[in-house]
């Protein structure tokens, strides 16, 4: 497997410029002869599809929702980072770069991160021009807030609906191109296979979710922007439909999968309330700007929060990390909450929660001041729990939120399969072992608006592949395989629902490959998962037929992939015998419980190559070099 990252020569600040100059361009008149497939219409895919069409390419774009506007990006709340330094508080491209590499616990590629910080400033300009109604100051300038893991205020936001507004901006740009006929949009269409011909990605096989028709789409290049795989845990903050199918099936066709075990647990989510729980709801991290996290000092303290006096409360983040306080990075905050609950100091009916208290903020800002900042989040909390967070502290607990792992890509965002590009959360990207808040939106839009549209031109100009049509035997073969899997799923006719298996897998993943991992647990999970998978293929019941709108069949296909992918995650977690960022191996911790990296052995991206059914995947490594941000222990105290 060729893991040459193709990082351009030269000083880090000049690499991207130089690369843009050195890349081959496609002649404007030739652009419309190229068709690019974009799978996904979130921030990454929506931005890429619109921009590629503006440049003159023909784009075929796909999503499984009924409208491109409903991609999971819509749910992002808190904000988007950019090194604008509008606050004059010492921010710079270099600082954003530095914070991201450090926040990622030194497991990201420096050159990519630097470029991300560079283009971050263009993103804000682009979104403003589209009419994104960012929050503003009275003087008319853009407003900022601070987010975890940073000491400057560089996060742009649109109330608590930043993802929605950014996505609507991209969606509207996309709809404009659809109206102009340069993008053909296929909503309610799911990619089920990648087709590789002569070693190049040449198209996809999809299922039309309305009719059940399975068909092929050929192209000159394929872009996957299919989001993250957090739903392997069943319960996560991701939308219900988020899945690993597109990237996993590309992996099976030869794309290397990097760092699958790097998942992010978000510290501030509403705790689980019962067995029927279908997803978890995030309370934006921005709440940690004004909310104070605490648990009772005493174990098993069952008093109401208002009855626990100040000196019997442990504001453990402020105590342990005086300079960052409640704004420590996500992995640190999550583990600290787990620790408090494991010690028996958890609160609420399940005892698996900590308080996020706004009493001081209300004193300082008044209730109205707090409502101005977080009103919609408070309402959401109340709607879900039936409790009023102005009167009683919120109860929060960490939940799976984001996946840093994904398909390996080089500096051009191309996977190990030539022609297959991967953007947004779907690639392994820029966040290393832990992503900073408000950086996923930034990365999705950077990839989609400003990076991929250039780099894919270089591929198209140099690949020189003959045109193929959807009649090519490789497409036929793939269609037959997809149909065979559908028939197999429908014919089992067992007694259990798809969700039962998904929940079972999720629990194994959460217990053994969640916030804390150890060798024995991971080995146990590696025994349990194949066993669940075997039962799934014998005992699941998928009602209905293939040639119809069949939501159970959609779900079954996705869970079948999670049941294989979960094993890859655990294998990766077991192999990475160190702690770093969100990957916490209990065997490797400092005296104070912080993650202990092993840079000697693990300063690399672990890239897995599929070797066939029943075969162990092969491990390859991309060594990471840190020339600018020197390897050091992350300190947030």
């Amino acid at each position, binding site marked *: 497997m060729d893991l040459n990252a193709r990082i351009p020569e030269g000083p880090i600040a000049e690499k991207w410029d130089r690369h843009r100059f050195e890349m081959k361009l496609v002649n404007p008149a030739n652009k419309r002869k190229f068709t690019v497939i974009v799978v996904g219409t979130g921030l990454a895919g929506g931005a890429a599809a619109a*921009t590629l069409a503006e440049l003159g390419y023909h784009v075929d774009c796909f999503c499984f*929702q*009924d*409208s491109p*506007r*409903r991609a*999971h990006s*819509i*749910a992002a709340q808190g904000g988007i980072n950019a090194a604008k330094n509008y606050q004059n508080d010492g921010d710079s491209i270099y600082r954003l770069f530095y914070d991201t590499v450090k926040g990622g616990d030194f497991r990201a590629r420096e050159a990519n991160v630097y470029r991300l910080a560079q283009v971050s400033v*263009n993103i*804000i*300009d682009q979104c*403003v*021009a*589209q*009419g994104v*109604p960012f*929050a*503003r*100051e*009275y*003087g*008319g*300038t*853009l407003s900022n807030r601070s987010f975890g893991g940073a000491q400057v205020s560089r996060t742009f936001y*649109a109330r608590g*609906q930043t993802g*929605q507004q950014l996505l609507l901006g991209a969606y*509207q*740009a996309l*709809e404009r191109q*659809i*109206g102009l006929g340069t993008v053909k949009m296929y909503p309610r269409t799911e990619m089920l296979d990648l087709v590789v011909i002569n070693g190049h990605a040449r198209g996809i096989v999809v299922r039309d979710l*309305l009719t059940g028709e399975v068909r092929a789409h050929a192209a000159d290049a394929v872009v996957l922007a299919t989001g993250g795989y957090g739903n392997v845990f069943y319960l996560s903050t991701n*939308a*219900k439909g988020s899945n690993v199918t597109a990237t996993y099936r590309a992996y099976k066709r030869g794309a290397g999968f990097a760092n699958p075990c790097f998942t992010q647990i978000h510290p501030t989510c509403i705790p689980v309330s*019962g067995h*029927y729980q*279908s*997803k978890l*709801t995030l309370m934006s991290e921005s709440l940690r700007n004004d909310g104070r996290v605490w648990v009772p000092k005493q174990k098993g303290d069952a008093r109401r929060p208002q009855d626990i006096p100040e000196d019997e409360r442990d504001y453990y983040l402020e105590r342990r990390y005086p300079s960052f306080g409640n704004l420590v990075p996500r992995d640190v905050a999550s583990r600290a909450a787990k620790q408090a609950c494991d010690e028996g100091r958890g609160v*609420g*009916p399940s005892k698996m929660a900590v308080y996020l208290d706004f009493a001081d903020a209300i004193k300082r800002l008044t209730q109205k001041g707090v409502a101005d900042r977080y009103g919609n989040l408070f309402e959401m909390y109340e*709607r*879900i*729990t*039936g*409790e009023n967070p102005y009167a009683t502290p919120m*109860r929060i607990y960490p939940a799976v939120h984001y996946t840093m792992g994904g398909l390996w890509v080089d500096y051009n965002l191309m996977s190990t399969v030539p022609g297959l590009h991967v953007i947004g959360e779907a690639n392994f990207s820029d966040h290393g072992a832990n992503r900073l808040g408000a950086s996923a939106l930034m990365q999705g839009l950077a990839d989609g608006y*400003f990076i991929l*549209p250039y780099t894919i031109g270089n591929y198209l100009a140099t690949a020189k592949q003959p045109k193929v049509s959807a009649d090519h035997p490789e497409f036929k073969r793939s269609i037959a395989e997809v149909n065979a899997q559908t028939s197999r799923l429908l014919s089992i006719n067992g007694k*259990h*629902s798809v969700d*039962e298996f998904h929940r079972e897998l999720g629990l194994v993943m959460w217990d053994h490959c969640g916030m804390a991992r150890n060798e024995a647990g991971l080995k146990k999970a590696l025994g349990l998962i194949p066993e669940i998978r075997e039962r799934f293929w014998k005992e699941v*019941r998928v*009602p209905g037929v293939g040639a*119809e*709108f069949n*939501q*159970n069949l959609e779900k079954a296909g996705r869970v079948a992939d999670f049941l294989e992918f979960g094993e890859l995650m655990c294998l990766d977690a077991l192999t990475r015998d160190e702690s770093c960022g969100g990957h916490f191996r209990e065997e490797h911790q400092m005296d104070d419980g912080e993650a202990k990296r092993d840079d000697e052995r693990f300063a690399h991206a672990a890239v897995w190559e599929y070797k066939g059914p029943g075969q162990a995947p092969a491990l390859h490594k991309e060594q990471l070099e840190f020339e600018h941000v020197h390897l050091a222990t992350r300190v947030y105290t």
Partner: protein
Amino acid sequence: MSGSSAATMKLTLRIWRQKDGKAAGKLETYKLDAVSPDMSFLEMLDVLNEQLTKSGGDPVSFDHDCREGICGACSMVINGRPHGPRKATTTCQLHMRSFKDGDTITIEPWRAAPFPVIKDLSVSRSSFDRIIAAGGFVSINTGSTVDGNATPIGKTDADEAMDYAQCIGCGACVAACPNAAAMLFTGAKVAHLVKLPQGQVERSGRVRNMVAQMDLEGFGSCTNHGECSEACPKEIPFDAIVMLNREYMRATVAGKE
């Protein structure tokens, strides 16, 4: 309190079942025990679907994704009201504590000709996408922009633009309207963009094209019932329609560009 201790409920559900767009549909009755008040409405339906699946039945189709009230996918008429009884709340954000033991709940899809039923409670809302494609954007290509702070925008204008921009494209406004008008949805986009300097250049063409598409899709016209705004989970103000009419007049009668 997230009362796992709270008593559970028994419910009777009358749910619209329709095999596909061509078949006739009808309400079917189901009984559900042990519904927790802390469940969301969709979790309650998940439980029903799981029972149906395991007993050899056919689960109910419905659209959903984020389950956080933001993607706009969920779309059910609950006891005659789009998104059910709670103000400013999508179906996915509705919790069973809004109902009581022994209740009968009737669940139907959005009903409007431009939203054809696909199956059971799922409908097609592609007509909304086509209204946006007709003009609900600023024609700006990636990269051809000035600095984000180059044009100051007053906080009040930005806030008002945001009030309208919050529309989630769910279609409850259409489902609630006796004429199946899409004026609140279309007006929300027109108002969002007209409040901002970036929306000025294409102001007239935008409203003309969007309204023309709205008519082409077969949406009705507004006769000032105001049901749309009442049903809207994002509380898009009825003013959006006033603004739409005003902008339309300005663009057509006054012929302004």
